[in-house]
């Protein structure tokens, strides 16, 4: 599994504007919609499902990273997007720190292994401090695309 297998490049947001958790989820879901990852008719249901998942426990996993996600039958394959907030957002993270890097994942309900492998891949890259730092410093969508390509070419991450 690589970023190129599930991240929709058109849904990458180098400048999250939302200042709270609900706003980030809405903004990223809109990016997925705009990129064709989900349909307009499904957007509200997807958001509701992600919020419901967050109520079970925040996906803010520490170190300024969150992976809001849900399983939803509106997608036939795993789709994801990346969002970077330069101000940081309170996401009820485990370590109580603000979140700067967001990876949103929507996966089909019947494929738990795909979701798990995507989480594995994302977190392996994020364990690399340089990858995290460069991602936080991204100024444009192109910067992020280049970083993801470099990650896919094994420049970062724990092997």
């Amino acid at each position: 599994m690589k970023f190129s297998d599930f991240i929709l490049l058109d849904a990458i947001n180098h400048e999250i504007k939302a200042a709270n958790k609900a706003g980030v989820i809405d903004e990223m879901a809109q990016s997925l919609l705009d990129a064709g990852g989900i349909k307009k008719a499904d957007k509200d249901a997807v958001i509701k499902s992600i919020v419901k998942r967050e109520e079970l426990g925040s996906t803010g996993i520490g170190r300024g990273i969150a992976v809001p996600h849900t399983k939803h039958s509106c997608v036939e394959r795993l789709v994801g997007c990346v969002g970077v907030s330069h101000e940081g957002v309170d996401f009820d993270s485990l370590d109580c720190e603000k979140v700067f890097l967001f990876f949103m994942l929507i996966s089909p309900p019947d494929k738990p292994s795909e979701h798990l492998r995507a989480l594995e891949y994302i977190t392996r890259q994020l364990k690399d401090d340089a990858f995290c730092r460069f991602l936080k410093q991204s100024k444009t969508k192109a910067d992020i695309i280049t970083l993801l390509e470099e990650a896919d070419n094994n420049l970062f991450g724990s092997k």
Partner: protein
Amino acid sequence: MKKLLRSLVVPNRQGIHARVATMLVKKVMEFRSAVSFAKGRNTADGRSVLDLLSLGAAQGDQLSLEVCGDDAAVCADALSLLFEQRFDEEA
């Protein structure tokens, strides 16, 4: 300083995903011992959700639990129990 090693098998269909990793980390935080989970050559700090997710531990995978500290025995028991209870998820 006590050091305990245990072998655990991931019991649930969805594997060690975010909610389960968070559950494990919260349990580890209740103890003073140092905790690590290893899958093959990869080792994860038991206090890091990021680390645990990076193992990509799926159902049936074998994990080596290492607990080191004065409360190692109760800590290892508590973590083993979560696996036995399948993290309150389906098989």
